[in-house]
């Protein structure tokens, strides 16, 4: 029996691959699927008694702890 070879001729395979990846003129390239939204870190490990968790943080640019007096405060 004349079995068709399982393996294609490397040259033919190369042509097929080029066909697969090449784009027709005026054809938009394939777009990547929409990115899945990042997991909301607020809800990661959310204790069951909470309905909602909001986060915030503050980076202090001034670390001076000396007092800043407000002129006139308490003088009246």
């Amino acid at each position, binding site marked *: 029996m004349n079995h068709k070879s399982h393996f294609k001729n490397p040259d033919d395979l190369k042509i097929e691959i080029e066909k697969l990846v090449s784009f027709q003129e005026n054809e938009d390239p394939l777009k990547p699927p929409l990115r899945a939204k990042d997991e909301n870190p607020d809800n990661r490990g959310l204790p069951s008694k*909470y*309905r909602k968790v909001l986060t915030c943080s503050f980076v202090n640019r001034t*670390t001076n702890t000396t007092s800043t007096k*407000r002129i006139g*405060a308490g003088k009246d």
Partner: protein
Amino acid sequence: MDKEITRPADKINTNLLTRDQFSKNGFPLKDFLEIKEISYGGFPEISGLNPRFKPGSKKLKVVLDIRVPEIEQDPTDLSLIVMKLIKLLPSLERHQCGEHLFEDLKSGKKGSYTEHSDKITNIAHMMEHVIIDLQSNITGMNSCSGITCGYKDPYFRFDLFVECKDKKVGMFSAFFAADVLKRLIANKNLSRRYYALIDLTKYLYGNNSLQRQTELDPLASQIGSEFGWKRSFVLSLLKKLKDFGFLNLKQALAT
């Protein structure tokens, strides 16, 4: 006793207030916002809820009940409250907030916080921001993070967790924030006393010997001369600091 109006069980489970209860002169401020409990510790069970929490950091936990009125003409203007808070604590504008709370409210955007349920959550979140800002301002913390956790039931209850370097400053910040927000929710302005309290706490924090002072007279004299404040004004501030757990004065404080 004030009557409480409750919604059907399938709706928001919160205590609402009638218009009469919100009468300008008769409404008890403490009922707006009440600190139920304050504790201090590591709270590892919630450490993963804010990726900015520093590993192993100590935190202040504040359990809070918020009951704002739901009436036709709702007097709690959150944008106005934000503006007044920023005037008191300008660095609030530089906070990183997952909800863009200060950006949205300051710009007067409506929508996400027009519902009653979101309003109380936003007020709780504001309180967290105020605590963070006060602590950073007073102790000079390089960074401070926190979370506001709204309960499923009761709906008006919140746990605030805020990184805390100094327990006494944390307690002061929580009580101060509650006091400020109660006034602002009641559409009252902040007197110069609030500004002075921040300055005084910052001054005392930076002067350990004064902070440990338990006798009233020498402490009041030094503060009076340092700031140029009248003795009666200094005494009223010291009484607040004692009430807020920041000072431990032996001598009775009378204002």
